[in-house]
């Protein structure tokens, strides 16, 4: 039975339409600079991507979750192959010209496969977690999902695209949690990362190791697993500094500038500083639509992609920011609601993964504009210009709408 349009989940569809309109208006404004650049007309191209995205959304809306579940391994395999291909043949673009995150054929940049890979990983994880009767209870149970996520992470880190890698990890943890994994196990799984971060302060790292030892005694995992965790944490503490040295200078600078953006306002800290100036000068009501001077005079970098949110902050003020964030919260909560009501584990996990994907993008992108999080080149859903991510979001929304329709059909609609 094919779903009909009027049976669509109206809250989700509605908030997506509003967000798309808000995002397109902001993208139009981002192009309105005093010295016009290519950004001036980029919203034309975004509308084309929106049309493609709408088609993709309806395609997914019409696709049965069963068929999707069947196709998942193939989609995942193709994704990994494309990522490998990108690594071998990819090209850079724009501000990240030295990266290899774009697929380019005959000089035409087709897209960033990493964005679609996120969706494939969600599907693959959902399929594997749904097939199990029990949630993962031991570290050993987590090996397979870690491999599912680890392969694309390794491939995008090599591009290098640290931001997407962080999103993958967020998706992994969110979906494991939704599948019923105990938070203590998730903490143990994440502990090496905590150890890595704390390794820069010997005292903090020492305290962390002692705490971890106590937690291991308390939670009593298998002995060899406990030993592995301890060992991993210690190794992280040892390799942290060499690892830091391995990071590319721009990655180091981004992290350092995150800690202190004023350290060199003309170079590393420039983006954050200009972003904060644009947002802060907006005040409560902003400078008016298309009238933000920081953006108009091109002080705001990448104002159509990574730093599109400061345009909202500068021109529409705190009010515009709160409205945008409220819309995003509504979107994520709608997705959570759909995930809760899904008729089967695969659908539920898929939609929860989609919610975590979109939420992690929002938090990371918005957080970096006010220096809450370090700068990573992560687009803001429905706002940032970019075909691949727009397509990924459309597909994700399509899946969620389908899942919502399925549960509506099975009698959840009135709930």
């Amino acid at each position, binding site marked *: 039975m094919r779903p009909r349009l009027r049976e669509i989940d109206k809250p989700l569809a509605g908030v997506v339409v509003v967000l798309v309109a808000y995002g397109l208006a902001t993208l139009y404004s981002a192009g309105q600079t005093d010295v016009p650049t290519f950004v001036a007309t980029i919203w034309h191209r975004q509308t084309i991507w929106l049309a493609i995205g709408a088609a993709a959304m309806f395609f997914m809306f019409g696709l049965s979750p069963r068929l999707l579940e069947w196709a998942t391994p193939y989609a995942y395999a193709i994704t990994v192959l494309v990522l490998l291909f990108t690594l071998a043949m990819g090209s850079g673009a724009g501000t990240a010209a030295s990266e290899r995150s774009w697929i380019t054929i005959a000089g035409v940049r087709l897209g960033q496969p990493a964005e679609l890979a996120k969706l494939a990983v969600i599907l693959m994880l959902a399929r594997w977690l749904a097939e199990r009767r029990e949630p993962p209870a031991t570290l050993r149970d987590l090996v397979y999902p870690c491999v599912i996520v680890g392969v694309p992470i390794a491939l995008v880190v090599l591009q290098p695209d640290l931001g997407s890698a962080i999103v993958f990890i967020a998706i992994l943890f969110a979906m494991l949690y939704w599948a019923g994994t105990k938070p203590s196990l998730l903490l143990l799984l994440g502990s090496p990362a905590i150890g890595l971060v704390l390794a820069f302060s010997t005292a903090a790292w020492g305290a962390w190791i002692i705490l971890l030892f106590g937690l291991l005694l308390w939670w009593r995992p298998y002995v060899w697993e406990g030993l592995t965790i301890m060992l991993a944490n210690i190794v992280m503490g040892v390799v942290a500094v060499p690892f830091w040295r391995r990071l590319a200078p721009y990655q180091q600078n981004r992290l350092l500038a995150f800690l202190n953006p004023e350290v060199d306002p003309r170079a590393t800290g420039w983006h954050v500083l200009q972003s904060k*100036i644009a947002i802060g000068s907006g005040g409560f009501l902003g400078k008016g639509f298309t009238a933000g001077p920081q953006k108009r005079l091109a002080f705001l970098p990448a104002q159509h992609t990574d730093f599109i949110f400061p345009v909202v902050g500068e021109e529409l003020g705190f009010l515009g920011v709160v409205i945008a964030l409220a819309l995003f919260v509504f979107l994520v909560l709608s997705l959570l609601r759909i995930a809760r009501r899904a008729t089967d584990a695969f659908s539920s996990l898929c939609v929860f993964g989609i919610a975590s994907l979109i939420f992690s993008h929002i938090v990371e992108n918005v957080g970096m504009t006010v220096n809450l999080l370090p700068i990573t080149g992560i687009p803001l859903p429905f706002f940032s210009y970019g075909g691949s991510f727009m397509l990924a979001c459309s597909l994700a929304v399509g899946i969620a709408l389908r899942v919502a329709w399925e549960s509506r059909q099975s009698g959840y609609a009135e709930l």
Partner: protein
Amino acid sequence: MSSFHPHLLDRRLRVARAVVWAIMGLIVVVFFRTQILEHGKYRLQSELNRLRPITLPAPRGLIMDRNGKVLAENVPGYTVSLLPGDQDSLRAVLRRLAPLVKLDEAEIGRVLTRYRRAPYLPVMVLPNAKFELVSALEERRVIFPGLLIQPEPKRHYPDSSLVAHLVGYVGEVTEAERGQRRFTGVRLGGLVGKDGLERQYDDSLRGADGVRFVEVSALGRVVREAGAASTLAPVSGQPLRTTIDLDLQRYVAQIFPAGQRGAVLALNPNTGEILALYSAPGFDPNSFVGGIEAATWRRLNESESHPLFDRSIQARYPPGSTWKLAVAAIALKRGLVTFHSHMPIPCRGGLQYGNRFFRCWSAQGHGDLALADAIAQSCDVFFYQLGLKIGLSSLLEEANGIGFHTRTGVDLPGEITPEFPTGTEYYDRAYGPRRWTSAVTLNLAIGQGENAQTLVNMVRFYQMLASDGHARPPFLVHPGPNPNVTLGLSPDQLAGLRQAMISVVERGTARGAGRFGGTITIAGKTGTAQNPHGPDHGWFIGFAPADKPEIVVGAIVEFAREGPYVAPLVTRVIGHYLGVDTTLASHLRIVLPTDSAPHPVPILPGVVPEDTVPPDTGRMDTTRTDTTNATPPPRDR
């Protein structure tokens, strides 16, 4: 599927919602802090970010003569600057500018240095652009982002070298100067007076620069003018009315012997107002505007005639016979002589003193003269004896009292202190105790020896003679503090001295110099400054009308051989000022006494301390500003 039991899912959903709300709440709080609480700070940063201040240079005040004629004015000029984006793009733009503006690598480096000192200000590329260049640049404006062409008032001196030493010149403020309290308000690259009146009265001439703001893009392109409300208009400097009489100044320059070095200073004896101040050779102060070319600067500095040097206040010359009036005044004040006093030994062409024979300039001798005639004839023998009669320590004390070791305090920068012994201990220092004799008195008495005066100081002394005996320090704009120096002579004695000086012009050493149809009586005194390196320097200082003087003019001409040659110059200046037709004088053949300068007589035979004898470099003594200007023994009259 136990893990997907609705109760378990509900619990996880609650946790997930809590996480979403918590994180979003945190983000909203951060935005609230940034946009509402710190709004003021970021709004300010945003303004500073996009607004660039552009200096609107204040026109300097005009410098005018006493009748309002312009000595220094402003004409429109253009400066070319760049609003920098960052250093690399600035370098690139400079490279592109280079062929048009003719910049070499070194100059690009200098511009970049200037940029690094103030990276958010427009950086000056060309301080003085020609109109053709400006239009060429305007045509190509598109390819030079941040190009800023500003009209900027340019200093212009219509009379050029004629007033060079008087008005001085302007130049870009140096780092060292900006450290001084006086120039703290001057912006980087701003113009300040470097010499002359421009420097002396820089504070009032400079005015206050204005500022306007332009909005720039992140690349440094000027996008538009900011609101007019934020523009601060420049305040022009205050005009400076000087005491100079430009007509007289021009006349002085016109009649000053071409190619000669020297100086002329004219002042009003009753007020101290300087009417003309001329030093030759001059230089063109206009060549300093907008930065002097290195070659011109080198030529000015290395020239043997030192054109930058103001010979009226920065050069010391032995005053020679012009100083005899000081000896006469001191003797009269002390009551040692009257105008009718005779000296014990009449002039027979010289005077035997100890084992030395001190010659008079006139080998035939002047015979037995009274003081008045001795002044008129400038008889050395008379003054040798008069000096001895006063005594060395009294002579030094009185001379110091009337300011022969003091600056006049004229309101021009760089006036030097005259060289004069402050007491007998000076000789002890110079030659060693007991290694000199009172023979130095004889030299001092005729204006030789350890005595070197600036022209301005000698004119000040004659100003005292020409007025009521009180000093009125010379000035160009504002009189300096009056040290209350007086000659201490009675009006009769002053009148007698003036009469003697009239005789100098009418029948004495400068006879023939002051005859303009007999309407004006000029008083004055010649002098010959003995110069060990060439022909002597000639002095003449005179004033008129002798009964009620209105002008004192002093002149020194280097290598003029003798004072009498200088006298007509001064008398013509006086005549011009007093409105007498001087054309007659210009054709007048001046009858001068045949001069045979006495041979040098060493004060201390055989023992001449090294530091008192200038090395025989051929360089003029007068260019030395140190105190080793003591001249070797005299030979003058």
